[in-house]
């Protein structure tokens, strides 16, 4: 399994042709207290870069973009009632959705963990 990051602070963990998507620790720290998350429905076809989810903190609403193309397998239902999971565990239990990748090679354009850490350190 490998984890990749976007410059927009999404992550995708790839296991075979299944990806799990969320937002990074850095993103949640910038957003502050998260009060609402809207995740995509199963079956939705998405292209890399589409806005597929919404995350709202006390102070702002943000779009979440899909880091890869494919078909949504499921959204994280737990976030409907406990959006604070994204603050508590953004790169674990606070995942947003799972997706079946249509083009596994797309992850090659993303950053790995160390490249993303380097990217964030310069922000």
């Amino acid at each position: 399994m490998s984890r990749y990051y976007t410059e927009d602070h999404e992550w995708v963990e790839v296991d075979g042709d299944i990806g799990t998507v969320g937002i990074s620790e850095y993103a949640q720290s910038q957003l502050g207290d998260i009060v609402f998350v809207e995740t995509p429905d199963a079956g939705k076809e998405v292209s890399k870069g589409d806005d597929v989810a919404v995350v709202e903190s006390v102070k702002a609403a943000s779009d979440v973009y899909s880091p890869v193309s494919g078909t949504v397998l499921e959204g994280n239902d737990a976030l409907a009632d406990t959006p604070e999971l994204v603050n508590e565990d953004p790169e674990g239990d606070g995942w947003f959705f799972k997706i079946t990748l249509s083009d596994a090679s797309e992850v090659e354009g993303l950053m790995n963990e160390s490249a993303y850490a380097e990217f964030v350190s310069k922000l």
Partner: protein
Amino acid sequence: MSQQVQDQELSGDPEGGEGEPPLALLPLDAWHRARGGRMVPFAGYEMPVQYEGIMAEHLWTREHAGLFDVSHMGQLIFSGEGVEAALEALMPADIAAAKAGHPVYSMLLAENGGILDDLMLTRRDDGSIYMVVNGACKWDDIAHFREHLPDEIEINYLDEHALLALQGPKAAVVLARLIPGVDALVFMQGGLFQWQGHDLWISRSGYTGEDGFEISVPTGAVEALADAIVAAPEAKPIGLGARDSLRLEADLPLYGHDLDTETTPVSASLGFALKKRRREEGGFPGYERIMAERETGPILKRVGLIVDGRQPVREGAAVLDAEGSEVGRVTSGGFAPTVQKPIAMAYVPVAQSVVGTKITLVQRGKIHTAEVVQMPFVPHRYVRKGA
């Protein structure tokens, strides 16, 4: 991930656009940064939006005591022969009847009855008037006063004074430890106090719905005073983010958002500020329109909404009628930390302003439903009898 909508406090910088002068620094700028304050542009200043987090700071203020730096606000002293009548010509307050030392809420009105700013004014024992106006409006306000007040009225801008607010149920015990006697003040009463040789003007008032104090302090003493206050275990510094959510829950409108030149005291549901003698005698800008609106009702009225579900509906969302036409707008909104629901202030047609009315809203193409509720969303806890 990218931000689509910024909080109104974060984007609320009418003076900070391109070609504007650089942002000013608060007297406590370094103090805020040293305490982890995240600084953002607001009202022409770099101001702390949060320290540990808006939710935690909001709840702390409702439970304990929060220290706010509101030194961006304009503190003005008006003096001279006939100052009361001269100011009454620009606003609907009954300044002549105001008890010395007791702050009064009022609004600077345009000729058409629109609101130029909202403010607090206090008549002092020496006959002068102390006024606090919004930071984002203060330069325009001063220009307006200079243009409209007679030459014999002197306007003194207190740029050597900072303004702190200590708010919350523990505010009185914290402040009285430093400044004995402040807890004898009651809500909307002020007085002159001494602290370490400095004169402080302190009133029991604020912008959170909680008990608390506003403290005008010479800039040379503000850091020591802020240190002394947050040395108390009950007190923490609180940023603009929580100030916004606290005031929204308390039904306290924010100028530039819930109030502007398109709104009047009647449409803004601030009729209490139209004092009886002034309603009878007139003599303030917009008098005829405002009295007509009082008689027949304004077209739109400011109300409070609780939004169904969990998603916040923020400033700029449209209010729709049954046909889907836009008939009003949300002027403030967000997730309310104490209420634990999304709440909003909105201007809606008078027919839809009755408590219990269902309201349809649209934000970024998505329909939300809401209900008109009685404000404040969280009961005020003002101390009307001295401790």
